[in-house]
């Protein structure tokens, strides 16, 4: 069974076609990288899968459920987690409160209105676990605007993982990071359970080659190549897009 099956997906913004008849089959547990030059439609594709945008045409199926018309929070509750290209956190809450909010999201306790938020032992355990996994324990009570950029990116991914998604969309997880931060984030992502299906947009080819089982190359909103890292690297179309005729 495919974790994600995208068929004939098109999204137009006025006269501009950002994503054009994209079809993708991502198997359960697969790690798929989406690469392509800037403006290729990668983030638009993500926003379509996560539900922030609705497609002009085409369907999106997640584990045999047609989710094309689902709102973002409904997709999240089905197990689709995502991170954002620009860091996207809750700046007036502390690190620990950010993570707790994300953990609570997938429980029925998020709606409790008279119980102190830190009252649920299993939630707190999961919060502590994530703080440890992302080396943020010593920053637990820090407000997020005081974190370094790298720490904010780590928290960004921690939030997406809090609800134990089965499909995780990572939009440039290492963007703007130092080489040391990049390798530590790559290690964290590589260490995720294999059941988690990954869809990663990434510009850093080293990260892509470390993580990806397969790669889809997007150019002008269309998939121009798909295959294993080695196949894609040797694909003449890809070489053309990346290295030739750049003018």
């Amino acid at each position, binding site marked *: 069974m495919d974790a994600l099956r995208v068929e004939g997906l098109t999204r137009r913004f006025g006269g501009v076609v950002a994503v054009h008849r994209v079809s993708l089959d991502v198997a359960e547990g697969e790690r798929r990288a989406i690469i392509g030059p800037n403006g290729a439609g990668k983030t638009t594709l993500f926003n379509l899968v996560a539900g922030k945008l609705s497609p002009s045409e085409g369907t999106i199926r997640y584990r045999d459920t047609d989710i094309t018309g689902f*709102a973002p*929070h409904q997709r999240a509750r089905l197990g689709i987690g995502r991170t954002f290209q620009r860091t*996207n956190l*809750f700046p007036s809450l502390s690190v620990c409160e950010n993570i*707790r*909010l994300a953990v609570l999201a997938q429980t029925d306790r998020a709606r409790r209105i*008279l119980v102190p938020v*830190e009252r649920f032992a299993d939630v707190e355990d999961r919060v502590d676990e994530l703080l440890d996994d992302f080396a943020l324990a010593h920053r637990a009570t820090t407000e997020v605007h005081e974190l370094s950029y790298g720490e904010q990116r780590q928290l960004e991914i921690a939030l997406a993982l809090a609800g134990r998604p089965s499909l995780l969309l990572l939009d440039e997880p290492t963007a703007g990071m130092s080489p040391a931060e990049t390798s530590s984030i790559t290690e964290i992502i590589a260490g995720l359970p294999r059941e988690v299906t990954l869809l990663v947009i990434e510009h850093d080819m080293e990260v892509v080659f470390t993580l990806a089982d397969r790669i889809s190359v997007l150019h002008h909103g269309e998939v121009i190549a798909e295959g294993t890292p080695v196949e894609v690297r040797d694909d003449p179309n890809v070489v053309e897009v990346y290295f030739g005729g750049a003018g």
Partner: protein
Amino acid sequence: MTTSVARAARRNRWAVPALVLALVAVPFVLGTFEVSLATTALIFAVLAMSLDLLVGYTGLVSLGHAAFFGFGGYVAAYTAIHLTGNLLVVLPVVAAGTALLAVVLGFLALRTTGVYFLMLTLAFGQMLFGLAVKWTPVTGGSDGLAGVPAPFVGIGPMSYAFTGRVRFYYLVVVAVLALGWFLIRVVGSPFGHALVGIKDNEERLASLGYDTWRYKMAAYVLAGVVAGVVGALFVFFNRHAAPENLFWVVSGEVLLMVIIGGAGTMYGPALGAVLVRLFESYVSSYTDRWQTLLGLLFVAFVLFAPGGIVGVIRRRRNRGRAPG
């Protein structure tokens, strides 16, 4: 894990007993005028807290909170005059009525955010004000509903009436402590944190799995119901439901209380409300230009202390803690 909330609670261990003691002592130490002033100040304190649930926590700046305050008052007056002044009947009716109003208004207003939300809430408030002035058979028109009986609780000979300023004051103290406690619990709950999440970053909260629209609606209804209940108390205090209670000036004044006190906390707006009521009461006895002065006070806060009174207190405390 020790949270900031738990630490604050320990630090302020004596705050609640001291507050309760001070409130109980007011009629013993102060005169009738001050008791009345304290009564309205407490009512506005909770009104400001309920508005802050929207403004400071959820990030929904409403300029129409008087709609619930005034509407709750009219429902209370109408019920008390035509049915019974028994609070055990009146208050549930008020709560149900304002909840219904909030669902209807929220259904429309919550489709917008920012300045559009502000303008829509303002418009709804003014529509209700217009309705109250024009629908004379029900609302008493511009005279409002006079002759509201004293509220009571209990049945027949077992009932207790809140006649007299002091008895009513204690009723308000009990209601204010209960509602204040309720609101403080709400903002410390998972639901309350989700509201802050909406203010900070609604898109991200939705991507985590929160149906943010429902949370906003719930916050809007909660804030509306609390405002309606204190609006009912205000009408029982005056024994009169006046259309002015629905007027946008009341909404503006409550928003001012929230901002002067410090949005995003519960005790800030309560402090702001008390301060503004005291200011109005005392400064207006010296000068007719007290509104100008209040305006200047507001401008000064926005420019020099955007976090309100609470922001000033926090900064001083942090400075005290800084090493060296």
